[in-house]
């Protein structure tokens, strides 16, 4: 019988070799699939909408980039932009700059109380008959009012509150009292005939808040109470080149199309444009034009009314000069500012005691708010009110909006500054925000829109920390007029940029800051910080509007276009994934650098959180400063793709290696078990005259067959996968198998003649209990004990590795968003590999545990025969396993710790703990199994 026949006959060897080969194939296959998934994920997500970020020299540096790439500092000229565009490798070069902060007063807020008087031809005239949407007079509902026939006394408390997400700030609180009642229609005889007017209830005093608020007045549909001024709303504006921006964003950038048709720089005189719109009314404008907006150089200007009324207001106030510019804008739908305006209404008696709480009504700036062209007046509604003004049709709507010209300023426009802190092992970075000066905010304007002085006692100004700097501008601005061409939905633009790489939005959609720890270092559950009303706070605002570069120059007060471009986002012509395009991108970046600019290759980058400590955030009445705490913000990690790819590839290969090492150990254990069963056979052969060497060769030849099969399998796998890792792993498995075979063959050596001298060492611990008995048994069979301990340790380490993988594989791969996505794509194969490792470890303990199972059963039977009761026999088994577990514990814990450090450093301690628990759990389980 030759070696091959003997190998096949020895089913254990055949089976273990087959298991090992299958394990190799499956592990390599799983690892290969995992690697492919990883490469695919990284490729698909590491090349964003642009490849190179160009900034002026001494711009941002380092591996982690601030998300606010448009900082108002400028530094790149239009000539340089043209130069970049002319480079052969450039596909798109899209400039971006921060223009300004713009403050706008909300129209005088008012409270409308339903006091509908019903149809009256004398008041309504023929308005309803011919109006689109108007209601036929016969169908007007009956009069209705929330007020009573007799005037009642009310107290109104108006307040505005804003929150930065961490604490609320009451911007003002103002109170007024007076009596209100249902309106009456009074018919009077005048010289020309009958006249109808609306008057208040008998004895009504009305309600008036301090100036500049008006008072209360009755009209056809409601009683309107003029409320105190709302705080100024501050928005930021960025400038882009609409054509290249659209090329960058694709269809998501179509909202910029109207801006392409805006008039050139020399045709934006605010006076001329204002006069043009005034003339529309002189010559007549159709109702259709009112609804869709009149045509202005090929664009339907839907929001023409605010422009015209702001023009008229500026002209009346003397703000409009020959240099005033109309600045075309695409405004954001909604605002990121938090402002809540409330009015509490109480019915009171003559002594001022509250008789009834009528209710509190509130309105916030939210999605309905449009910067510069708010859709509707800032009106609040008395509880239970219904708006009947729609009965008139559209005539009441077109003129609504913001009337006063906004104030454009470059104060507090640039990005905050940060100083670097420590960097964690997974790439997470700590930073500290650098605070600026204290700035007093919450001041009222000196004059109201009508020129009336404003009662300054209505508000208490507060000091707020500035983290930003004013920008240098040209000449003092002549009041610019906002000329709104359209709107955009920030969420849709974000979506177009993708979750992983939001770099294109850095200019007009800064990533949010989330408070994670308070000033004392206590964890805070996900409080997102909001931009401050005054624009001095840490959190920068999403752009309220986008304009073009002519608008930028005008708003900055420059007469000619100087170096006002903050950054240029460049997409290279090179197609394909990041890796495929890398050479061309790098070359293009070098060419840009040759132009004297800072070119950062951001292809292959991804977002990741930076932890930012914010000191000196607020000040109490005594002037004592206190820190905000720690916030996290999504910054941009350069070369994240390489880091993620390298880290997860390393993880995969490590898992593959560990699994196969476990499989090889299992094979070795099986081999030893097999050989020990063949000692009798070896003795017979020796009795037949075979030498020890020949016996060993005879057995090794069988293992040689197995080794040959492994070598063939390894070679095929290596050729198929064409991967150096597979070669190394296959070779390692082969070496381990050969070592196990050689070691096993040595077990067949001829035993020395039995020494007839007493062998018992009196220094041994006397056997007087199940524990000492178990100890003696284990120390007598050292090989078995150590084999089993190693197996249990491997099992513990494998469990630890699995736990580490489950807990922390995304973090282990790095802190970036890409690492999380990539880790998710390889999680399943990785867990399969880790589970294989655990299964191998478990089987290994079973195989090694059976080495002396027969002998163990025999001596347990002997003990039983001599009267050891079941409890004591159980103790023997438990103590044996506990002692093995004690030996295995360091191996399991250190192994788990090591695997944890290799796979997921942040979960290494958890891995060690899992290894400890796994070994401890093995003890009772093994005790039960041996029974």
């Amino acid at each position, binding site marked *: 019988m030759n070696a091959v026949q003997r190998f096949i006959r020895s089913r254990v060897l055949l089976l273990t070799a087959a298991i090992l080969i299958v394990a190799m194939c499956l592990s390599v296959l799983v690892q290969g699939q995992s690697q492919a998934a990883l490469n695919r994920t990284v490729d698909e997500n590491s090349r964003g909408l642009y490849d190179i970020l160009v900034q002026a020299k001494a711009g941002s540096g380092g591996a982690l980039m601030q998300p606010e790439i448009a900082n108002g500092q400028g530094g790149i000229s239009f000539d340089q932009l043209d130069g970049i565009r002319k480079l052969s490798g450039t596909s798109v070069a899209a400039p971006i700059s921060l223009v300004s902060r713009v403050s706008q007063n909300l129209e005088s807020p008012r409270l409308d109380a339903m006091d509908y008087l019903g149809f009256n031809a004398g008041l309504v005239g023929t308005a309803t008959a011919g109006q689109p949407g108007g209601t036929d007079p016969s169908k007007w509902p009956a009069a209705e009012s929330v007020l009573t026939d007799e005037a009642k006394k009310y107290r109104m408390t108006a307040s505005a509150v804003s929150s930065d997400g961490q604490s609320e700030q009451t911007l003002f609180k103002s109170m007024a009292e007076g009596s209100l009642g249902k309106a009456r229609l009074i018919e009077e005889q005048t010289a020309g005939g009958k006249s109808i007017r609306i008057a208040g209830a008998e004895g009504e005093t009305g309600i008036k808040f301090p100036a500049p608020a008006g008072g209360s007045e009755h009209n056809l549909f409601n009683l309107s109470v003029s409320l105190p001024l709302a705080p100024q709303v501050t928005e930021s504006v960025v400038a882009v080149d609409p054509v290249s921006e659209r090329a960058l964003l694709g269809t998501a950038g179509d909202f910029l199309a109207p801006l392409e048709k805006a008039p050139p720089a020399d045709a934006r005189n605010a006076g001329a444009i204002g006069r043009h719109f005034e003339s529309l009314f002189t010559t007549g404008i159709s109702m259709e034009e009112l609804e869709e907006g009149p045509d202005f150089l090929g664009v339907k200007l839907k929001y023409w009314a605010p422009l015209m009324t702001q023009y008229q207001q500026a002209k009346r106030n003397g703000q409009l000069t020959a240099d005033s510019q109309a600045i075309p804008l695409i405004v954001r739908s909604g605002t990121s500012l938090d402002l809540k305006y409330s009015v509490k209404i109480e019915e009171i008696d003559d002594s001022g005691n509250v008789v009834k709480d009528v209710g509190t009504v509130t309105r916030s700036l939210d999605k309905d708010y449009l910067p510069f062209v708010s859709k509707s007046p800032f009106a609040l509604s008395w509880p239970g009110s219904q708006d009947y003004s729609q009965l008139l049709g559209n005539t009441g709507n077109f003129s609504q909006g913001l009337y006063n010209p906004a104030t454009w300023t470059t104060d507090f426009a640039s990005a905050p500054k940060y100083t670097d802190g420590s960097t964690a092992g997974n790439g997470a970075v700590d930073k500290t925000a650098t605070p600026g000066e204290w700035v007093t905010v919450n001041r009222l304007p000196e004059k109201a829109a009508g020129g009336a002085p404003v009662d300054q006692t209505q508000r208490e100004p507060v000091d707020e920390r500035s983290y930003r700097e004013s920008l240098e501008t040209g000449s003092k601005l002549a009041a610019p007029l906002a000329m709104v061409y359209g709107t955009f939905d920030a969420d849709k633009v974000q979506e177009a940029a993708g979750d992983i790489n939001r770099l294109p939005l850095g200019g007009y959609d800064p990533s949010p800051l989330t408070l994670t720890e308070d000033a004392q270092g206590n964890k805070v559950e996900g409080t997102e910080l909001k931009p401050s009303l005054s624009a001095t706070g840490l959190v920068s605002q999403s752009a309220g509007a986008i304009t073009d570069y002519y608008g930028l120059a005008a708003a900055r007060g420059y007469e000619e276009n100087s170096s006002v471009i903050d950054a240029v986002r460049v997409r290279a012509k090179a197609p394909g994934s990041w890796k495929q395009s890398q050479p061309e991108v790098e070359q293009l970046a070098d060419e840009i650098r040759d132009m004297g600019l800072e070119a950062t290759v951001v292809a292959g980058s991804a977002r990741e959180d930076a932890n930012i400590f914010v000191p000196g955030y607020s000040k109490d009445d005594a002037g004592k400063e206190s820190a905000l705490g720690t916030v996290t913000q999504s910054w941009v990690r350069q070369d994240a793709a390489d880091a993620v790819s390298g880290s997860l590839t390393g993880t995969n290969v490590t898992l593959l290696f560990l699994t196969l090492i476990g499989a090889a150990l299992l094979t070795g254990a099986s081999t030893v078990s097999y050989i020990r069963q063949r000692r009798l056979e070896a003795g017979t052969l020796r009795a037949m005259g075979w030498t020890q060497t020949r016996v060993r060769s005879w057995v090794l030849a069988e293992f040689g067959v197995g080794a040959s099969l492994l070598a063939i399998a390894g070679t095929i796998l290596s050729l198929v996968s064409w991967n150096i890792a597979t070669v190394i792993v296959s070779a390692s498995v082969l070496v381990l198998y050969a070592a196990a075979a050689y070691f096993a063959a040595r077990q067949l050596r001829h035993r020395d003649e*039995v*020494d*007839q001298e*007493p*062998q*018992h060492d*009196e220094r041994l611990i*006397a*056997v*007087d*209990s*199940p524990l000492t*008995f178990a100890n*003696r*048994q284990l*120390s*007598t*069979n050292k090989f078995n004990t150590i084999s089993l301990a190693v197996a249990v340790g491997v099992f513990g380490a494998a469990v630890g590795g699995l736990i580490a993988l489950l807990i922390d594989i995304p973090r282990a791969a790095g802190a970036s968003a890409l690492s999380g996505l990539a880790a998710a794509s390889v999680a399943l194969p990785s867990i399969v590999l880790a589970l294989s490792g655990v299964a191998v470890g478990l089987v290994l303990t079973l195989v090694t545990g059976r080495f002396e199972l027969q*002998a163990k059963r*025999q*001596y347990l*039977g*002997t*003990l*039983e*025969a*001599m*009267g*050891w*009761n*079941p*409890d*004591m026999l159980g103790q023997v088994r438990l103590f044996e396993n506990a002692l093995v577990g004690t030996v295995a514990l360091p191996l399991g814990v250190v192994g788990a710790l090591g695997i944890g450090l290799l796979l997921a450093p942040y979960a290494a301690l958890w891995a060690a703990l899992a290894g400890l628990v796994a070994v401890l759990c093995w003890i009772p389980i093994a005790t039960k199994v041996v029974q």
Partner: protein
Amino acid sequence: MNNDVNLDRIPQDDAGDGSLQTRANTILKAADHGTPLELSNITIRYGGQKGGADAVNVVEGFDLTLHAGEMHCVAGRSGSGKTSILTVGAGLTLPTSGRVFWEGQSLESMGDDEIADRRRALIGYVDQGGALIDGMSALENVLLPAVPDGEVDQRRDMAKDLLDLVGLGRRMRHRPAQLSGGERQRVAIARALILGTRVLVVDEPTASLDRTSANRIISILKDTTSDGIAVLVASHDHELVRLSDTLTELI
């Protein structure tokens, strides 16, 4: 009943002296507690537990009353059920049917722990080949039955005396691998006697032994009966059969 040991019949290869003999007299005294072992209508069936065709009745309707100081031999061919009767008698396995009484008390009424405790006090079981524990010296093997009661130290001298008694006084520090088959068997007998057993159950004590070694074992067993210990032995050794007080031959 004479409970003294007849030392004249113990092999004297250790050249025992008077003091040793005196100690041994004390050791091997067994108290008379009535019939130590009784097997009643024992049936032992293997395989086909549900009464299938492959069930084999190894032993059927076996009765035995073993008195103190009596040696009963169960003889028969291999596979005839000798060892099965011994393990049932020692309470190590339960018969398919029938009852086992130790000093008049049925094992059916006892739990596993009580059986173990009673076995330790009453029965000394010597497995075929001795079944010593590797890694422990002859002395430690002899002392193993004393472990459950925590009497290892108290019985150490007694164990040494027993090893002297079976002629292994000079080999008490040797391990099983260093002992011959006959020596291992004698160590096992000494171990079975360490707790003052009243029934010695011995399985094939002379199998694979040369005649001289076998005779030593037989002599030791016979001597124990003279000390009031009942011996139940399974064997097909003619000499042992001849010297037994009673015999059951299984067919």
